[in-house]
């Protein structure tokens, strides 16, 4: 082991492993791996619900500040215990199942949703040594798990025997199918250029710095920038987050597929939504933001899981910010954005990535040309397709209200 590698493997970096080995130490050899896996599962099951709890608080606080009000500030110190009060409220509320509902599906829907979204958390590399499940085809596993959650949304919409729920289920299916395509296409260049479907392999492919401060993250290339933008827009839609929260649009569909749910089942839906948001953000960090790698070489003393947490929380904050900023789309606008805008851009991004790959051997003098061509391949289609889509959409004419 070289001196640098020893330094990178500091005690802080290995702390989670040390704690795990301490716990699993007394267990005899053949059983140890089971205990180690159970500990990894327990940690995921402890960290993400806690993150969910405090994320709801952060969301309400941030939304409050953006809307010029304090947000929850009564329970605990400045409202810090609000999530636990909410949890107790949800647990003690009556669980109502409509008489006409399909009781089996009504019960299974939230359970399936939470389990599928938890499954997708398994393959994300949270740190140098922190990969709960290191699969060769991990990326495929992730999207298989998150695609299955659409089924649960449909089950929830169907089981309630409520026309608003059913309408919402239809909308949800249409939306999730439509945005799955750009989501998957935007990550194809990453897989192509890294040459692997394993998340840890993709993080390893983004290692290193140019001149000690320019990280080799995918987002710092023309195709990576476009891919990241497409991925995040599609992720917003996949996680049913504003401005794509049509399936549960409160003002149009009461609460969509959540209409006939109450009590803890209702809370489970929210939990699953936040898990999905965390999983997709974690995948975005892995694919485009260098995973657990430090942004600058001299900052490597901060443990890798710390960097992952910082990146993950910034993306989650971005989700909240977007929710506070953008109004909800209409269903036809939503479809048009997916099929006529994001999908062509994602396909063109494949060409951009191929160009970037083929021009990797160009000398230092040709780098400005390489960057210019790459950025042009991203920007020109964006402007052209965007303009074409927005022609004929003049300023709105108000017939009955004063502008």
């Amino acid at each position, binding site marked *: 082991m070289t001196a640098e590698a020893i330094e990178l493997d500091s005690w802080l970096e290995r702390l989670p492993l040390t704690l795990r080995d301490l716990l699993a130490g007394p267990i005899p050899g053949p059983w140890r791996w089971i205990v180690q896996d159970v500990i990894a599962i327990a940690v995921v099951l402890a960290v993400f619900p806690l993150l969910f709890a405090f994320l709801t608080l952060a969301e309400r606080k941030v939304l409050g500040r953006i809307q010029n009000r304090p947000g929850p500030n009564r329970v605990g110190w400045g409202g810090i215990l609000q999530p636990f009060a909410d949890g107790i409220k949800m647990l003690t509320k009556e669980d109502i199942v409509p008489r006409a509902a399909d009781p089996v599906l009504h019960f299974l829907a939230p359970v399936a949703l939470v389990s599928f979204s938890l499954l997708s958390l398994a393959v994300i590399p949270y740190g140098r040594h922190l990969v709960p499940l290191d699969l060769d085809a991990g990326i495929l596993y992730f999207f298989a798990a998150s695609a299955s959650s659409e089924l649960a949304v449909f089950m929830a919409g169907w089981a309630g025997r409520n026309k608003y729920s059913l309408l919402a289920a239809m909308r949800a299916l249409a939306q999730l199918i439509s945005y799955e395509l750009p989501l998957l296409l935007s990550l194809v260049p990453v897989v192509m250029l890294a040459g692997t*479907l394993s998340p840890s392999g993709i993080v390893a492919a983004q290692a290193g710095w140019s001149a000690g401060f320019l990280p080799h993250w995918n987002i710092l290339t023309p195709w990576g920038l476009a891919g990241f933008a497409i991925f995040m827009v599609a992720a917003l839609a996949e996680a049913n987050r504003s401005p794509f929260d049509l399936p549960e649009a409160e003002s149009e569909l009461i609460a969509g597929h959540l209409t006939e749910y109450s009590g803890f089942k209702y809370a489970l839906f929210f939990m699953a939504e936040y898990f999905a948001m965390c999983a997709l953000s974690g995948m975005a960090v892995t694919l485009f933001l260098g995973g657990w790698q430090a942004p600058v070489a001299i900052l490597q003393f901060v443990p890798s899981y710390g960097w992952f947490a910082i990146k993950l929380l910034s993306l989650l904050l971005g989700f909240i910010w977007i929710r506070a900023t953008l109004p909800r789309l209409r269903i036809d606008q939503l479809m048009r954005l997916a099929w006529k805008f994001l999908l062509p851009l994602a396909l063109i991004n494949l060409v951009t990535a191929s160009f970037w790959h083929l021009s990797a051997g160009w000398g230092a003098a040709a780098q400005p040309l390489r960057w210019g061509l790459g950025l042009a391949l991203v920007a020109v289609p964006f402007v052209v397709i965007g303009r074409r889509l927005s022609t004929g959409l003049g300023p709105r004419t108000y017939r009955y209200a004063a502008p």
Partner: protein
Amino acid sequence: MNATLVLLGVFIVATAGTALSLQNIVRSVLLLVLSWFGIAAFYLWAGAEFAAFAQALVYGGAVSMVVLFAVLLTRRGHQDATVAPPPPGRLLAALLAGGAVAGIIAATVIRTPFASVSDEVPVLPVRRLGALLMGPHAAALLVTGALLTAALLGAVVIAAGAKDDKEGSP
């Protein structure tokens, strides 16, 4: 090892059989999806990780959505989701047709000589799978791609032929 295989087989056949016998079409679809997940589990048991996840992604995520969409668009409400039991004539015809297909498949399986397999499970990493698909089997991949593209274009032509509403008006 073989107990797992038997359990998986029973699970797949049982869910598919129940899906066929149920009157409520939505429940049938959901059971069918469960059966597809069973097939994915079988691939996982057989060591074909890639095929298993692709099965879950394509069948569990995409094909199921298409089937559910078809059900939702052709039914008017919850009451309509229950299908009447088939008349005896149709039942007989279905049994005959299904039996014939099952017979052909079974006969083919029985008559096919299988090379004796060693106990060692071959490991095929995804990278090698990709190299095989892009190298020796590139022609098959291209033919499949061309076929799917033709089907997609056909669907677009059919959809575009339908009278479309004026879009974009608020």
